[in-house]
């Protein structure tokens, strides 16, 4: 229901309400029942019930209270059936209110606990925090629903049996845990922004859910510059999202994108976030990635990009987190400043590490083609084509080869 771009406005409103309330309901239930699995299961049941009845009967005035009532009733029923929990039922006379505090940070940190596999972190976060149903997760990741369901059951079993706590760590532990959360959110975003599987390259929805999560996180942790950096980075990608594909679904390169179609309000929001983050004086990879993306977003055309600034930012990024892919991107900026020979030279160092990466060969192909070395360029472009499964990228590489 939330994945189709064709879905009606009513569906969009419903999806938004569900997303805003799902995490609060789950968190409120965990607080009261002290059982992650039970809380998550019952809030999921309530969501499924809402998705059935709300389109028919309309969205209630207080959707959060509706969900919480249904979910609590289910939890109580289940506990009543379970002798072991009899004692806890007595404590539930108190009314469960979602609005008393926003517990979603604890929920997010638990879902993204490093003792869980990345797949489990992604699945739990989508279900418990964003209110995805199991079916929606399966559709987003093109996985069988039974597989996703089994993965979630296993993850929740581990939370209970391995003693993964429901808590917010402090100090350096929070930094480590936050890095894990940001990695999950960025993976989700990229999965939506540029899926490498299937024929529909642009899954708008998952990317927007990831941006929504990052925005939520930035409100819950307002003093963490990397969270602001990631949110800015997502906004910058989303701002250019529409112009990355033409009407027939073909990919359009940065150089050829119609910059008038970029969402300049979103770009301005992102730049404000980058400035807010920079004021903390604690640079990090997401802030730097966002600053680089901002250099591109602010330029009226490709030639006017501040390539020197881009190279400086890449050098800072490499100092923090050395990576051959970052070196590849830096080489592209060097190409714009010093020309293709210098850039080709820079690619030599990383060639062994990036031999399996299609964009490495695509870039080298372009550089060689600019130098008139057509046969070598052709070979690189064929290699690039071999290495990608993404339909839009394949079509772009094919056009480059045959036109």
């Amino acid at each position, binding site marked *: 229901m939330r994945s189709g771009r064709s879905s009606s406005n009513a569906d969009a409103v419903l999806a938004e309400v569900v997303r805003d309330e799902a995490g609060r309901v789950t968190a409120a239930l965990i607080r009261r029942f002290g059982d992650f699995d039970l809380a998550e299961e019952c809030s999921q049941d309530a969501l499924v019930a809402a998705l059935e009845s709300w389109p028919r009967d309309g969205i209630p005035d207080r959707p959060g209270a509706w969900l919480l009532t249904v979910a609590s009733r289910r939890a109580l029923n289940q506990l009543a059936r379970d002798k072991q929990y009899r004692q806890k039922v007595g404590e539930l006379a108190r009314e469960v209110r979602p609005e008393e505090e926003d517990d979603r940070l604890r929920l997010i940190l638990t879902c993204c606990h490093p003792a869980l596999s990345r797949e489990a972190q992604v699945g739990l976060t989508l279900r418990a925090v964003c209110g995805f149903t199991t079916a929606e997760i399966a559709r987003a990741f093109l996985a069988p629903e039974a597989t996703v369901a089994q993965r979630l059951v296993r993850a929740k079993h581990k939370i209970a049996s391995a*003693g*993964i706590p429901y808590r917010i760590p402090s100090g350096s*532990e929070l930094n480590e845990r936050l890095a894990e959360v940001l990695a999950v959110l960025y993976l989700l975003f990229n999965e939506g922004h540029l899926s490498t599987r299937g024929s529909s390259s642009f899954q708008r929805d998952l990317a927007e859910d990831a941006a929504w999560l990052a925005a939520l996180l930035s409100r819950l942790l307002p003093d963490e510059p990397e969270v602001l950096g990631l949110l800015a980075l997502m906004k910058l990608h989303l701002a250019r999202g529409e112009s990355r594909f033409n009407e027939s679904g073909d990919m359009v390169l940065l150089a050829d994108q119609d910059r008038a179609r970029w969402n300049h309000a979103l770009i301005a929001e992102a730049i404000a976030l980058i400035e807010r983050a920079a004021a903390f004086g604690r640079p990090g990879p997401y802030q730097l990635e966002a600053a680089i993306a901002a250099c591109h977003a602010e330029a009226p055309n490709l030639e006017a990009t501040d390539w020197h600034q881009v190279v400086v930012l890449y050098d800072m990024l490499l100092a923090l987190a050395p990576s051959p892919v970052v070196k590849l991107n830096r080489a592209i900026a060097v190409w714009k400043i010093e020309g293709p020979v210098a850039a080709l030279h820079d690619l030599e160092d990383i060639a062994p590490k990036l031999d399996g990466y299609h964009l490495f060969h695509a870039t080298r192909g372009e550089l060689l083609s600019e130098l008139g070395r057509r046969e070598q360029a052709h070979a690189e472009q064929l290699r690039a084509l071999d290495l990608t499964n993404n339909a839009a990228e394949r079509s772009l590489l094919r056009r480059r080869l045959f036109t």
Partner: protein
Amino acid sequence: MKYVFLFCGTPADQAAFDTLTPEQLKERYAEVGRWFAQNQARLGHGNQLQGPDTATTVRFQPDGKPIVRDGLFLEGKEIVGGYTEVDVANLDEALAMAKSWPGRGTIEVRPVIQQR
């Protein structure tokens, strides 16, 4: 919650250990000693194990017949070198303890089934 730490290592870990100078070795043992002293209240029973060449495996066949063989259960390169019980509030506390282990190698953290 009770956990067991399994202290594991690879031949590379062993090689790194073997190249320590006598001073470094002394310092390493001192660090490990401090770790045990600091965590004493949370540690249960534990032991360092003799080398992998001393291991014997009793493996049960599908028909229930036990077969005794020389060597380790795991064919892989990681070898369990010792274990200790740990009693802490939750996995985060167990992981914080494991992360402060000065002996290097790899630690597998496993919850113990709670007897009700």
